[in-house]
């Protein structure tokens, strides 16, 4: 059973073993508005917690997506670069951004659970 944690910057990370799947939250996509462009990191790239490693652009503006955890990018979701609107329609599901091999699972302790994130965005 995967656990889902949330960052201050509105990323979610679903963790199974030492692999984390990362996306942006439904709240974040709502704030962005219509997403028209997504840029993802290269597989193999090492990312540090808090590092800008993807870009999501709405009609209005470009926003960075930050790695909520340190690790190595294993796989990216080409479906959202091909169809950026997926980020609006299914941010918490099909529109995941990338997967990382987590370097240190203790970093997860600094993230928020669902209830804390709800309170953060309320």
């Amino acid at each position: 059973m995967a656990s889902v944690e949330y960052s201050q910057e509105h990323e979610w990370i679903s963790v199974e073993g030492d692999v984390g799947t990362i996306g942006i939250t439904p709240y974040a996509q709502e704030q962005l508005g219509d997403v028209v462009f997504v840029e993802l990191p290269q597989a193999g790239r090492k990312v540090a917690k808090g590092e800008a490693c993807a870009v999501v652009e709405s009609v209005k503006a470009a926003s960075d997506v930050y790695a909520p955890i340190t690790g190595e990018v294993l796989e990216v979701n080409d479906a959202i670069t091909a169809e950026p609107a997926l980020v609006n329609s299914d941010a918490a599901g099909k529109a995941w951004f990338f997967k990382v091999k987590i370097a240190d699972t203790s970093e997860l302790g600094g993230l928020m659970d669902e209830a804390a994130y709800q309170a953060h965005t309320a």
Partner: protein
Amino acid sequence: MTETPAAPLKRTPLYALHRELGARIVPFAGYEMPVQYPTGILAEHAQTRIAAGLFDVSHMGQVRLAARSGQTATQALETVVPADIAGLQPGQQRYTQFTNDQGGILDDLMVTSTGDHLLLVVNAACKDADLAHVQKHLAATCEVEPMFSRGLLALQGPLAAQALARLVPQIADLKFMTGTFVVIDGARCYVTRSGYTGCDGFEISTPADATDAIARKLLAQPEVKPIGLGARDSLRLEAGLCLYGHDIDTTTTPIEAGLLWSIGKERRAQGGFPGAAIVQQQITEGAPRKRVGLLPEGKAIAREGAEIALSGKVVGKVTSGGFAPTLGRAIAMGYVERALSANGTKVELVVRGKSVPAEIVPMPFVKHAYYRG
């Protein structure tokens, strides 16, 4: 356009309506304005291009100029703008700019002659400065009346005329860049056939207290939906129209900006507006740089501030860029050195440190569809 820091935000007569419609409200030019409604910018953009959209542009500044006894308002205004204003027939409208002594642009504006006075529409962020400028230069010849509390509605799109004609039949014959007084819902309004989208459409100046009722009447038409400032920006960018404070400002001349068409033929020769010598010299010898359209390859979006480079050397800067919903791709405009400004020139746009190939292309990106009768 710059946002006013810290000052209390103002509201247009449609603030309550925006809230009711579920708009996302943002600070813009000192006002609380709707950036989008729940349908979102892409849907609002398409709505305007396909049917009709209603925009609240009441934050813009409306100013009335009436000549003092023995004076002529059109001649007076020509001392601060380069357009042919003296040649305006009653009901005719022109686009022009307030220029400074260096030929830079203080603001761009629309001027309409009603026959016995002139109506100006200026940008929201500049309106106080514009008013002071006009009062300083024209107070001796004209009564300068700011009408900043009036409403201004833009109804834009191929079905705008059909929708508005149901309320005001006489607008059907109005041609692009002309205007007339009308009565809507019992209120005296001034309608011009103009806008900022490249579509056919109208701008309707309304008494403040009638604005809400008129907006609701327009929204009750089956063709019409409310549109926010987000889509207003993507529509004007597709139409290749300048946004003050971004594509034009005090450091750009009308010639650099590609606005020579808006300068009267006689005025090019005779001058008589601030910065005329510089503008005339640029007409004759060419401006050092030109505003151009840019079509980047691929999907990356080059936004305002992105550098334009050629063989690694910076040759200009993007002043507006974004996703063009009608075209489903990124577009931009910016300034490049004149020698490199020819259509078809291959350049690079620097997006987040990466070089994106782009081509200089003619504007508009989406063909204008004005009603010329």
